[in-house]
């Protein structure tokens, strides 16, 4: 994501935000759900729109795919496209008054979100061929395999290079790090994907810095995806992290932001295969701790039958495996914590 410079009178322009995550972590689906999430957001002033036709089409097509076709967006191919949207919102920022006093003032913000629609494979520390027997990570993937279908030959002709992606990420002011806990349980490769990218960002931003103890300046919203996955949801429920928002008539479950980091730690601790616990440690080491925040998210949310006024514990899975083995979205899409990380990033950048 990039930030446009300038904008409507009085609207503050913010910095760049990059998207970062392992294959099949749900990056494309996350972005496709963003339009729905914005539409469903309680804040009336929140809106999103593309800055060009390609970005608008991306939003329209993938939103329709989720809602009308009830399908997940196809895995990211090396299109090399760069998308850009404007996310407009209002937020309160501190304003210095006379005599040094500070007051909170509501100001309109406009973040231009730029996305190089990158496949997750770019973020691997070591290039590996995907396992054709386990597309999207195999196991109970439930269809978030938006990085599936990549083959080795598809590198040919791509305009996106690892360097360009890394340059983009390194130049971002905020990062949206997507982490798929279900992939970590089955593949255990989150740290592998994470550390290579982290080191390359550090290489680009910290080279030449002389201040000891200096850290990377970006704000990082760490999003544990697929909260609607029954295994993730049950761990939240059983671990006491599940909450129901008082103002949500559908009573969809969520994990409060203040518990998200602890839940994230629990999720990665339950993986017997990987070293995802190192991710959190590395984040604290490389970024300012108060610039890292955790969110438990779901692009499609939980299933709620039309007959039911609210979420049903007995029947909440919003994906259905089809006869051909693919997954389809079962009911309406109710994104959870899709907008909130971006709002937090926007607020944080605005408060700089």
């Amino acid at each position, binding site marked *: 994501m990039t930030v446009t410079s300038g904008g409507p009178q009085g609207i503050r322009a913010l910095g760049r935000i990059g998207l970062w995550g392992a294959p099949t972590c749900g990056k494309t689906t996350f972005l496709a759900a963003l339009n729905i999430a914005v539409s469903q957001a309680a804040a009336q002033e929140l809106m999103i729109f593309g800055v060009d036709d390609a970005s608008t089409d991306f939003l329209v097509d993938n939103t329709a795919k989720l809602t009308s076709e009830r399908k997940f967006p196809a895995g990211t191919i090396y299109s090399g496209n760069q998308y850009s949207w404007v996310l407009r919102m209002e937020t309160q920022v501190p304003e210095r008054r006379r005599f040094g006093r500070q007051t909170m003032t509501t100001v309109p913000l406009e973040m231009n979100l730029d996305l190089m629609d990158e496949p997750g494979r770019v973020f691997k520390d070591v290039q590996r061929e995907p396992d054709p027997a386990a597309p999207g990570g195999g196991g*109970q993937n*439930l269809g978030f395999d938006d990085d599936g279908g990549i083959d080795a030959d598809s590198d040919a002709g791509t305009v996106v290079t690892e360097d360009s992606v890394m340059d983009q990420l390194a130049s971002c002011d905020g990062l949206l790090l997507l982490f798929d806990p279900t992939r970590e349980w089955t593949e255990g490769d989150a740290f592998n994907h994470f550390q290579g990218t982290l080191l390359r960002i550090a290489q680009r931003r910290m080279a030449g810095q002389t201040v000891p103890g200096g850290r990377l300046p970006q704000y990082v919203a760490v999003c544990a995806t697929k909260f609607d996955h029954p295994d993730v949801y*049950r761990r939240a429920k059983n671990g006491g992290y599940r909450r129901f928002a008082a103002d949500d008539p559908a009573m969809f479950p969520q994990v409060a932001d203040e518990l998200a980091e602890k839940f994230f730690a629990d999720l990665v601790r339950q993986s017997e295969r990987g070293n995802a616990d190192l991710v959190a440690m590395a984040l604290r080491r490389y970024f300012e701790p108060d610039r890292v925040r955790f969110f438990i998210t779901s692009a499609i949310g939980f299933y709620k039958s039309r*007959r039911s006024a609210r979420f049903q514990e*007995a029947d909440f899975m919003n994906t*259905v*495996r*089809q006869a051909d083995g693919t997954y389809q979205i*079962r009911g309406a899409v109710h994104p959870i914590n899709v907008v909130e990380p971006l709002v937090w990033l926007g607020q944080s950048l605005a408060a700089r």
Partner: protein
Amino acid sequence: MSSADQRPRACPVCGRQAGRARDCAECGWTLQKVWRPGPVTAQLREDFGRRLSAAQRRFDAHAAALVSTDRDRLTSWIRGGRPDDVEWVAALREAAKAADGAADQAPACATVLTALRDLPSGSEAVIVEIGPEGIGVTRAALDRLGTPLLREQPVTPWALLVPLLSTTEEERLFQLAGGIATLDRGLLTRYLADATRLATVPAEATGTLVVCQPAGWRILEEAARHLAGAAPHGTLIRVAGSPAEGNGVVGSLRKRMPLLRSYGLVVATIAPATGAISLGMRPLFQPGDAQGAESVLTLRRAPGDRDATILAVAVEGETADSDGTTIDRGALNVLSLHEMPPLDEPVYRVRAVLEAPGRVRFTEPAGITPLGRSWPETAAAIPRRVDVLPGPVDLVCALELAGDKPQVDRRRDLIRDLLEHLDDEFTDPGQLRVGLLGCRDHVFAPGEERRPVVRRQPLGTPADALLALENFRGTDVRYMDAAPLEDLLHEAHRMLAGSSAQGRSARLLLVARRRPHPRILGPDLVQPCPFDCDWRRLAQGLAASGVPVVAVADVLSRRAATHGFWADVGQAGLHSLAETSARKVGADLGVTARPGQRIGIPLPA
């Protein structure tokens, strides 16, 4: 001087010793007259000869008429030649007169049977039969079933008893009847008077019945008189006419004797609740029934039991309680066992004919033969309990319709085979009602989840179900991990809910590949049933309602056979589709006989 000349003078007509009497005391022939003057002229000799011939002819014709009404049969032994018409008619009349007071065969048998019936328990009588063949002695008693026990000794032929009788049968019959004029009457009398020579009567006999048949035959009557007089408690029974069979009444005694106790056919009754087998009787013959009596019973076999059936004829008695149910199968008084060949018809008639007390023959169906096996051995082979249902049955066949066509066809084929089998076995209308259920997949998509997925054919005849099955066509799989089997259980529960109140047993057959949808989302991530059906609760409800379920899975793993849905549901039987058959399924359902549980004897219709 010849030996004949040495014998005492005898009557030239009847051969009786003449003595000094003027007339023969037996035949009245004038033996001596006063002397008359004058020579014996040829005319006188001729007149004398003519009168003697006539007297001899009359004497011999009497004996010949006793043996046969055919005038020419014994003519060669009639002195004086062939009787004329008048003489023969007179001889026949005299023969009939000789049998005066004799009983006919049937009343004579009745007299004998009455005497036997009145015998004190455990005692026996002796029947001495004096007939044309000789003298026979039979020890007679009734067994505990009222059947005559007759131990006949070989008949001692007349040639041994009275050696002076002719060895030629026809002449000997002539002599026995009274053609004895040429015999040594004194010697004959001595033979006949020697009762111990004629017959040996056991000292322990309660009574002696001396049967003389045919009555009027001179030697027979004389021997009978001596024997009856000599035997303790001797009773003489004279029987007119020649014996119908053998040497006297004993030959036909068994046939003529009426039954003293009822005969029945042993049948098996199945307790509806437990399947316990109890034995009972269906009446065949009543006391008083005699030879030739017929009885027809309508019986049935257990559905699917197409092996040979044993028909056991038993005497009704104290071994049965008031409703005919046998308390102790081993104590049944079984007279005879018969083997009936396998029948196609589930309900059939047997026709029994009483040949004699203790002897029953089955004339329908064809091919029933006596069975050389003991009743205890047969009874031991009858199971104590069976799974096959005794009464009317409601059966619901439920199948998963989704899947590859060949696989769906295999499920339908199994049900079709079963229904065709049952259609053959249940011919009584209403005895078996069959309903069909078929499910297509739940579709988990907006607006489609609540669409009914179960197709149903109400309870009806197997033939109707067979027709309907053709319209239960396969559908595509829309959801991989489960099929709406819980909806099938729900519908089956509804279809069979009223069966019990109607006195009908209820059964469910489930043929499917996949597991059901759970009520709530579980760790296996199978979508819950949109109709909130709970297969566990439904399976428990069916069991609590007394509806056993037989389950057939396309593929049945070892684990599935012991854990989870298939094991929980298929309590009455669990099969793999490739390894089962309609007969196995039918046996588990209790609608057809299990091979190891053959009852082997008829069921009451």
